[in-house]
């Protein structure tokens, strides 16, 4: 009888044991090929953004993270990735962001990467559209949710204002709430307690499994962005000064914005605003207000992390297409107050590299469409970013202020002009 029981269940028991051992073993994975890293650096897919392997290998090979959101996928010839490739710059941008990535997503998904960014540089494009009353869009957060990064963060969380705030914010998210172990740990962090020992052990085992899954199962194949980028690179001359690029950008921009008076890319206009959809947008954004909300404190989490790891960050605040803003009724005054509030938060804590383009929304061919920077806008960004990345790293001094985690800051009005 024993023999028969063993014959039936032995193989399953062994298979289960082996699987568990494989996932719990501290595996190490071979380096990704340069081609795979190149592909991942423009993929902007959830696999790359929520995974750890591609981001960290790229950083180890000297790539510079460009944090942002939807504008990163506007891969026209003047996009940072195109310029860096064509002119053999001393840096390779690694694009971290996609439509829907906001401060909280960026903060969590940077966790495994931050130690590798220590004493290095980064570029951060922050969109005012993130700063809505509700803050991060819940479905987008869930879409980019990374258990690996979240567990990494929670295991290192301390009893600080920042970490308690982050835990509370994460607990609002559906993807996190569904994860019972992470949820329990977050509740303890939010309450200022240490994570209990059994829970910590469970999370550590989980982290090992997640690391192995990430190494074993994340594949990086050729993505459409790579082809798009290659096409853009081919359109650039072999050598060009920033002024020459600006002139070329104006020419390319003019050729792409013929079917509308907003200076919006033809394809974007016909596919998103054509067939009467434009008229429906008139006055539609009169109520938009980017001055308040949780995003300001979520953004502070990123600043806290950059300060902790001594990262020198160049921030970029892109504009909104002025004709578009006028048509939709978006309040310029409120927008400028929001930008001012963000600048106070940045510069008040020593983050002095802020390229504020928010008043450049009416410059021709600066925006590729409604809210996304393009052509001449990218060239303007390059004029600041290229020298920043070319120069040797200089010391930074940040002095963090916990008041940015308070409700009174989130509700505060900073008068702009």
């Amino acid at each position, binding site marked *: *009888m024993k023999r*028969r*029981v063993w014959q*039936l*269940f032995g193989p*399953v028991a062994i298979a289960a044991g082996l699987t568990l051992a494989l996932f719990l073993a501290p595996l190490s994975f071979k380096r990704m090929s340069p081609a795979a890293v190149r592909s991942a650096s423009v993929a902007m897919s959830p696999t790359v953004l929520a995974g750890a392997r591609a981001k960290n290998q790229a950083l180890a090979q000297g790539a510079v993270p460009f944090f942002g959101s939807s504008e990163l996928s506007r891969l026209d010839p003047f996009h940072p990735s195109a310029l860096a490739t064509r002119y053999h710059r001393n840096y390779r941008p690694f694009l971290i962001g996609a439509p829907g990535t906001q401060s909280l997503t960026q903060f969590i998904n940077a966790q495994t990467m931050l130690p590798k960014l220590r004493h290095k540089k980064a570029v951060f494009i922050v969109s005012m559209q993130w700063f809505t009353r509700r803050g991060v869009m819940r479905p987008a957060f869930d879409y980019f949710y990374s258990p690996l990064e979240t567990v990494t963060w929670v295991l290192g969380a301390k009893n600080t204002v920042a970490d308690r705030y982050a835990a509370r914010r994460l607990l609002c998210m559906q993807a996190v709430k*569904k994860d019972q172990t992470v949820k329990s740990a977050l509740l303890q962090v939010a309450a200022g307690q240490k994570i209990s020992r059994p829970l910590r052990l469970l999370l550590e085992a989980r982290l090992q499994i997640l690391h192995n899954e990430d190494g074993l199962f994340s594949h990086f194949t050729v993505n459409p962005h790579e082809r798009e980028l290659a096409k853009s690179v081919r359109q650039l001359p072999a050598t060009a000064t920033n002024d020459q690029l600006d002139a070329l950008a104006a020419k390319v921009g003019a050729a792409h914005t013929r079917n509308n008076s907003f200076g919006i890319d033809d394809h974007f206009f016909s596919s998103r605003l054509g067939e009467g959809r434009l008229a429906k947008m008139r006055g539609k954004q009169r109520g938009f207000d980017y001055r308040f909300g949780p995003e300001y404190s979520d953004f502070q989490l990123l600043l806290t992390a950059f300060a902790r790891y001594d990262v020198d960050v160049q921030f970029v605040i892109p504009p909104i297409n002025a004709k578009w803003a006028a048509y939709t009724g978006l309040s310029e005054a409120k927008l400028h107050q929001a930008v001012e509030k963000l600048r106070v938060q940045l510069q008040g804590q020593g983050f002095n590299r802020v390229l504020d383009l928010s008043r450049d929304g009416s410059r021709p061919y600066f925006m590729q469409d409604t809210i996304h920077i393009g052509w001449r806008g990218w060239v303007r960004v390059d004029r600041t970013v290229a020298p920043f990345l070319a120069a040797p790293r200089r010391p930074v001094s940040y002095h963090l202020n916990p008041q940015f985690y308070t409700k009174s800051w989130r509700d505060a009005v900073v008068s702009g002009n």
Partner: protein
Amino acid sequence: MSPLSPYADPKYFLILLVALIPVIVGLWHGHRLRYWESGVALVFIAWMFAGPHKWHEGVALIAYVIFQLALVEGYAHYRKAHNQTPTFVLAVLASIAPLAVVKLTPVFSVQPSLLGFLGISYLTFKSVQVIMELRDGALKAVPPVAFLRFLLFLPTISSGPIDRFRRFQKDYDAVPTQDAYLEMLGRALKSVMLGFGYKFVLGYLFGTVMLPQVTQAAMAARGTWALTWPLIGYMYTYSMYLFFDFAGYSLFAVGMSLVMGIDTPVNFNKPFAAGNIKEFWNRWHMTLSFWFRDFIFMRVTFFIMKHKLIKNRIRVSQVAYLINFLIMGFWHGVTWYYIVYGLFHAGAIIINDYWLRYKKKHRATMPHNQWTQALAVVITFNVVCFSFLIFSGFLGQVF
């Protein structure tokens, strides 16, 4: 507390198996732990409907079960002394009524019926079957507790396979010997592992990975009334998804039944290896098609013959097929594509019958070898896949 859907992810098996450990140990030693088993079933059923969005389904289930119990016991009591046809018809109609309301509600309202809950169809099949067998005299009495146990048998509660009361009761009363139980556990393991491969690997591959891609491609290529290549791709992908998802689910239900010492009948037997449509229905969703055969097709045939409504025997079976599959279509849901799906299969099976008769007549000249056999399988497979394309309702979106 969030609801625990049966077999939705591998965790369910772990939780259920842990809860069933005493049952397994008991059966191993020749005892059935009746109270523990019922307790586990009740807890897991309650868990299925836990939380703010599902509790009303749980209430609907309780009301439904009380109603069916009263109906079946009432009819069983009545049947001891009487056997009037109108009473029987009334009992069957009453038994079907809640399901009919649930299925018809979407035609009139965007809100789903309050009577509905996960698994109502399969409970109705079981209940109707008991009433029919009481009418036939095959069943003399239905003890209330036994009826509830049969109706609410946990492994099959949400989507079958559809067992028969007498078969189930025999298994339940006879505790298997240790040898037999070990053999059952072996089959349980095989079913569950194969089910994992079907549902979580192949079903996932076809349903979650591939289906959205072919859907998008087919939507992009729409605008003609022809079968475009992407639409054909959709047809095969959807068919594979339908099979692996449901067959995997059925294997889980069979496996977990075996763990509890109940030999629930299998639902699929290599359906795509069928050489004709009739054979297909003997291999696809078998407990459903046998239920329809026994309680619709046979009864319709018998009714027509008894009342001499149609003389020609071929016509009799053709009409019976049409009614049988039409009802199956309506059962799937009151939409054009389920009904067309039913009619399509009735048509296919009628044409198939013509062909079989033709073949029989010309047996001497008709080639029959492995090539014709293979051709038959290929044709049947494609006809079936096309019927699933109708079933998917996707044609309504594409055209």
